[in-house]
């Protein structure tokens, strides 16, 4: 891949991670992590590690997002006691 495109992808990766860390809304953080996973999967595939990229896309983009959304759904922001 051209190094300019790779630079753009890595910059977006860092921005996504920072947004996921700092944002108040937890659902937004989960979506940012999902996009992070898909983008890093794309980078793995470009670097030649197809197997690692596949695993990252399936686990990081699919299952982890569902589990985190369920956890947000089951918990509340403020404690009740």
């Amino acid at each position: 891949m051209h190094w300019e495109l790779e630079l753009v992808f890595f910059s977006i990766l860092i921005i996504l991670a920072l947004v996921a860390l700092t944002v108040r809304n937890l659902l937004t953080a989960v979506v940012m992590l999902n996009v992070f996973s898909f983008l890093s999967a794309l980078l793995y595939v470009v670097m030649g590690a197809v197997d690692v990229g596949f695993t990252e896309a399936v686990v990081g983009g699919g299952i982890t997002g569902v589990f985190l959304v369920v956890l947000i759904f089951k918990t509340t922001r403020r404690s009740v006691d």
Partner: protein
Amino acid sequence: MKEAENNPIVSLIASIVSPFIMLFGLYVIFHGHYSPGGGFQGGTLMAASIILIRLAHSGQTGQLQFPATLNTPLGSLGVLIYYGTGLAALWWGGQFLNYAYLPLAQAISWRRSWGILMVEIGVGLAVMAILVSIFDDLLEDNSYD
């Protein structure tokens, strides 16, 4: 989970998409020994198809396709398939998981291919059942107060 009424569009789309995800997961498992993918990825895809149905149909309806009571038996069966392949190789005179010693009437390279396929099936079953089990446990309504 909160008892919301089923949205017909969401449940219809999930019902249409889910079998294709399951088929792709099976494809990934059964081609795992000579192309990218394998038991873990295929099992995760199959778990994703089952979890999609459970997300779209709330309550007991989502359990019709794959009831929660199957989780632990299937997970154990997957581990047993994996371990049994290794033990079969050990029993017939080789090392643990040395597929060349499996009792199949074929050339050694084919024996290795079938052995890897069996291990992949075991891993896929275990991963699928355990991921669905984690999802069910997360959604379980029990208060520990």
